Each structure stands twice: as C-alpha cells, then as structure tokens.
C-alpha cells in the first residue's frame, strides 16, 4: 500500500484534547509496544507530555499494559486521569 503508509490513530479526550487542540492524530507506525507508542506521541505533541505521563492507554475497549503490542493500523486512546461520577 504505497499510498497508505502504516499508521496508528490516537484519540484524545477532555483536557488532553484541549491541550493538543485536536481530538485525534495519526502517526506513522509500523508496530511496537504501548511503551514505544507513548514515546512517539510525547515527541509528536510535547504539549500533552505531562498529562500523558499520568495517563493510561486503551486498545479498543480495554486498558493496555506497557508491553502489549500495538499493531500497525491500530486505534489507540489515551486515557488521562478520570473524573466521572
């Protein structure tokens, strides 16, 4: 897919979306761990790095662990500290 280089789609929420000025971003991504993805996102959007350090990462409808694999083409969400209720 030469016109479609491998990417990962990252969704942002609440104050993190506000700090980033956007609700999602796509980054080039050929695969790696959740920990790798954190570094990539922090480098791409330094404005959200502080909140990112306190955040969890979700793959689909479950929370992910640092060494979980994130495939190329995955949908990932960053979950900053929650405040529901």
């Amino acid at each position, binding site marked *: 897919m030469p016109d479609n280089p491998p990417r990962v789609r990252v969704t942002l*929420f*609440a104050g993190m979306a506000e700090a980033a000025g956007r609700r999602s971003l796509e980054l080039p991504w050929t695969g790696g761990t959740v920990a790798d993805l954190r570094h990539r996102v922090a480098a791409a959007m330094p404005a959200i790095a502080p909140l990112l350090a306190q955040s*969890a990462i979700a793959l689909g409808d479950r929370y992910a662990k640092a060494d979980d694999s994130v495939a190329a083409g995955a949908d990932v969400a960053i979950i900053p500290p*929650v*405040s*529901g*209720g």
Partner: protein
Amino acid sequence: MHPPAAAFRSRTDGPVTLTRGPLDTAAVLAAVSDPAAGGNVLFVGTARSVTADITTSRLEYEAHEPLAHAMLAALLAEARRRFSLAGCAAAHRLGVVEPGEASVAVAASAPHRPAAFAATEWLMAEIKREVPIWKCEHRPDGSHTWVHGDPNTPPRETHHE
C-alpha cells in the same frame, strides 16, 4: 473544547446506561428489584452549583464510550460476585448537566441491607477511579476547566501498565 454537538443518544445494555438525556434514576432502582432482595440502595450524584466557594454554572461530561461501557459492565459483574448481590445497575449522563440534575446513578440489591450499601459505595468509588469519563466545570464568566483526577479519590492503580 466541547465534544461535538450530538443528537440525543442513549445506550442501555443490560444494567449499564450511558445517555445524553436526563437520567431515569427510578429505572436504575427498578432494575435491581428482585424477590430475594430485602435491601435496595440507590446513589444519585447531582451537579452542585457551589463547590468549595467556586460557583459552577453547569457541568459537562465526556467519555470514551466503548471503554466506559465495558468498564462499567465489568465493575457491576465484580460487585455482584464480591457482595453476593441480587442485582446492580449503573447509569452515567454525558454532555451538559445543569445544577441539580443527576450525573450518575448506581443501585444495588441484596438479601440484607449491609451488602447493598457496601456494594453501592464500592461501585461509586471504582467508577470515579476507573471509568474513562471526564468532567468539565463551566463557570459563569465563561471559563471552564476539565478535571483530571479527583482530590477525594486515590489515584488509579498502575496495574494497567
């Protein structure tokens, strides 16, 4: 930043409801009714207009909806086992919540009342700690703040990563 304007949208799946309309708190209580249950507890969280001397004109909630739904269902299943409940249910409102309106409702029923109380308190604490829902406080001057972390809730355990 506000979430995109959304038409009325509600998703009820078994005992979990996420909705942009007013919460039906009576329905949450009715959902836990059971012939074996003598004790039924309903908690309703309402938007306060004054919190620690700061006036809030309205609240707004945003969620990672599929994950919030899955987490709520998992917490209800765990509560049912842990407290030997007859039933339990949870509903959370998303979008704008005016002062006095309900943002969250949780109910539990059990043969005796202590388990129903303990389960409802536990569920509320877990919801505030684990479920990906965020609150934005809007003030009369037009400013707003997204809240990340509750000073009354211990931080999420790091078992996710």
